[in-house]
Structures are given as C-alpha cells and as structure tokens.
C-alpha cells in the first residue's frame, strides 16, 4: 500500500522545469510569485492527492499565499517539498519549510546568479559586443539557456534531499556565498576600470600656443580610471542613501547634458 504513495516520477520532475516558466505569470504586489508557485505545484499535488479533493484544496490554498524566491533555487524547493508531500508529511512541517526556506534560497540564488554570473556575463559579452562582435551576444544567449537547464539538476537534487538535513546545506552555502562574493567583487573592480568612460575635455592654457589637458596631465597621472572610481563610489553612496535608481539615471543624464553644454566633457 505504501508504495502507491510514490507517484512523482522522473518525468514529472523534468516536466516541472518547463512549468516553472509560469512562476511569475501573474506576478503582483499582493502575493508576488504566489499564484505562479501554485500553478507550478498544482498538477503534482493533484497527482499525489488523487480524488481526495478536501486535502487537495487545503494543499493548494497553502501554496497560493505570498511567495518570492529566486527562479533557479525555486526548483530545489519544489523538488524538496514534492518529496515531502509525497511522503505525506504533516502540513505544518511542509508549510514551515516552504515559508522559512524561500527567503534564504533566494539569497543564495541571487548572490550566485544575479551578483556573480550577471556581472561576469555582462562584462565579458558586452566588451565583445561593443567592438561589434556578435560572438558576445551569442555566448550570453547560450550560457543563459544552460542556466535554465540547470533547473533539471536543482529539482532532482531537492527531491533527493527529501527530509534529510537542511542545516548541513546551510553551512556549505555560507562558504560558497563568500567565495562567490570574492569573485564578484574582483570582477566589478575590473569592470569599473574598463567599462566606465568619463573624460574631462577642459584644458588650461599656459601660453597662447600651449595648453595642458586636465585629463591627461592630472587624472591620468594619478591613475587611469580615477574618475570612474569616484563616480562609482558616489553612486554607491547615493543608493545607500535610498535614492531611487530612476532618479539617479535621470540625474546622470541631466548632469552629463549640463557638462556637455558648458564644454567640460
């Protein structure tokens, strides 16, 4: 009798990767990804509960509240929770796990995919694209297809992990997250040096015939990339002060236009 409970097949888990496209299908300010998460889980909950509509309704209700995770790590959580539902673990345990895990998992996912992979991909591919090469965009395209396909790995890994210790995973991810930050910060340092361009055109005339460019004689002598560093630090400071990115973008436009009008840049 017990074996009949194990209804989630490998094929189901593979299929769930494609259903995950729906996670943000009706993203909204009330429940964020809650509705999409419900759509991802629903077919498998239906399979697990079969004709027991009462249980199915409760499970669907549990899974339709506020939810906000990172897209890849969501698959890990889905695999994990499906294995628990399948083993008919208590509703409380599953709900607690879902609510307590989606945040930390989002943190790991964001630090790996948004804050490490994204700057590297943007930096490498954009510097190729800026020289007019289509290889850059092509690499970008292929890498993110691979990232999508990594969902197969995560959903199966989550399912296998079942109820085994989550805390072990927690320790490892902390070290991994530090390593990812080191890599990310190094890359950002490099990107600041190479991809921000800001040069002062102003020159100081010494005699009628000779003049000195402030950029070449002063800033480039201190260190090339001195102004880009200053600008980045300023942006960092303003964002920390809770100035919204949109305001900053408009601010950059206005300041650059003004500087251009008076001939400084």
């Amino acid at each position, binding site marked *: 009798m017990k074996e009949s409970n194990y209804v989630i097949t490998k094929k189901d888990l593979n299929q769930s990767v494609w259903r995950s496209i*729906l996670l943000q299908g009706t993203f909204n300010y009330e429940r964020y990804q809650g*509705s999409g998460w419900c759509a991802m889980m629903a077919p498998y909950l239906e399979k697990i509960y079969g004709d027991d509509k009462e249980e199915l309704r409760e499970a669907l209700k549990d899974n339709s509240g506020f939810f906000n995770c990172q897209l890849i790590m969501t698959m890990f959580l889905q695999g994990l929770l499906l294995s628990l539902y399948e083993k008919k673990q208590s509703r409380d345990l599953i709900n607690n796990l879902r609510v307590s895990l989606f945040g930390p998992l989002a943190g790991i996912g964001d630090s790996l995919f948004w804050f490490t992979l994204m700057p590297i991909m943007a930096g490498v591919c954009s510097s190729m*694209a800026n020289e007019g090469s289509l290889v850059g965009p092509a690499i970008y395209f292929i890498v993110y297809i691979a990232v999508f396909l990594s969902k197969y790995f995560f959903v199966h890994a989550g399912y296998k992990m079942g109820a085994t210790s989550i805390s072990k995973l927690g320790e490892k991810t902390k070290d991994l997250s530090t390593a990812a930050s080191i890599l990310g910060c190094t890359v950002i340092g490099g990107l600041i040096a190479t991809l921000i361009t800001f040069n002062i055109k102003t020159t100081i005339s010494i005699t009628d015939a000779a003049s000195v460019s402030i950029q070449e004689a002063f800033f480039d002598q201190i260190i090339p990339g001195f102004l880009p560093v200053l600008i980045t630090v300023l942006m960092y400071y303003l964002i920390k002060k809770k100035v919204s990115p949109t305001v900053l973008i408009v601010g950059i*436009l206005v300041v650059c236009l003004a500087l251009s009008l008076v001939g400084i840049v």
Partner: protein
Amino acid sequence: MSVTLFQAILLSIWGLITGTDRMSEAFFWFRPIIVATGAGIILGDPVHGAMVGGLTELAFAGLTPAGGAIPPDPVIAGMMGAIFACGAGVNPAAAVGLALPFSVLMQYVLVLLYTGYAFFMKPLDRMIDKCDVKGIIRLNIFGLFLAGVVYMVFTFLASYLMQDAISALIRIIPEWFMNGLEVAGGVMPALGFGMLLTTMFKVKYTPFIVIGFLAATYGGFNNILPVALIGAAFAMYNYFFKKEDTVSAVMENGGGEDEGI
C-alpha cells in the same frame, strides 16, 4: 528613419517574445544585449544592434529586480536603443540615452501591470476552492501572454507609428545634447556597478575590488575574463584553505597542550 511596416511587425513579435520572457525571466532573452542584437538583425544592422545592446547591458547589469523596486525596463531600453542606432543611424552610445525615456515609461506600465494582476487573485482563490488545477495554470499562462502583448503594442507604437516624430526629434537635437547623451551612456554602468555593490559589498571584500581594478587597468587584457580568473583563484583559495586552516589550528592547539604537560 526607415523602419518598414514589415520590420515593425517583426520587431513587435520580437517584443512579444522578449516581453513574455521579461515577465517570466526564464531564458534571459529580456536582457538588453539579446533584445538589441535581435532587433538589430531584424533591422539589417546586427553589428550596431550588438554595440548598443552591450552598452545598455552594462548600464542595466546592476538594476536587478532582486532589490525590490522595478528598474527602468530592459526590453524597451534594448529595443529602442537598437531602433535609434540601426534604424535612425544614431551613434550607439547616444542611442542608449535616447532610449531611456521609453524604458522609464515602460517601467511605469509594468508597475501598473503588477498592481493590476492583484485582481487576478480573487479568481485564483475561486479556482482553488473548486480544485480547478487546469484553470490555475491557464490563469498564469494568460498573465504571461498579456504582459507579452503589452510589450508588443508598445514596440509597434514606438517603432512604427511614432517614427516620423522620432526622426524629426533627432534632426532638431543640437550637437552638445547628443554629446551629453554619449557621455551619459559611458557613465551609466557606474550606476549598475554601484547597485551591485550595495548588495554584495562588505569592507572585507575591498582588497578584491582593488585587485580587480588594478589588474584590469595595468594588465593589458582585452576582455574581463582574465580578471574573472584572478577572482576565481582567490575565491577557491578562500574556500579550500579556510577548511585546512581550521583543521590545522585544531591540531596545533592539541600539540601545544601535549608539550605543556
């Protein structure tokens, strides 16, 4: 400006595809580098499409939805950047700046959409009550598709119906204004990097930023990959040696006690 009706239709379909992906964030086709390169191909000038896409990508690299607030829209930034650079022949760096107002406008459309989708939650709850699994899935597919259609309509309006207005605008723009836009396009990545740093920077990571900066400034590499490898080396060193240090510290302590006896 020369966007034909046929091109505008293709661009709109590209807008539908990338707009749907913007909503789902599944394949990252919504990133400016992909959107602009695709639009460049449609407009017959993939090289300038890729260039404007690369520049926009850098500016948008740090503008992640992970932070909470919605950033200016990456799809429309890439799309309009390509239309300006490939369709109207504007310098790619200036095209980034010209595309921004459109992308900020789309940002607000998206805020409306995210607010409006809250009204989908009532029908969702009703479907849950009825255990209507197919309905729940259909509701979310509809949501994705609706967002894609909004992008499609926006792209068509901006690329075709408004093109006379846009090219008239470009003709009257003075040179200092275009220059200012170009400079802004070069500065914009600083915002992206600043945003990234607010979420990942801790004082203890400062050395790695300095190392990355110096390696890129004086290393003479023609792309960022070697710098990334230097970063990866430090990351691995930290990951593997930290464990060893912990083990040897324990052993040394043990040895010290023996000698003490």
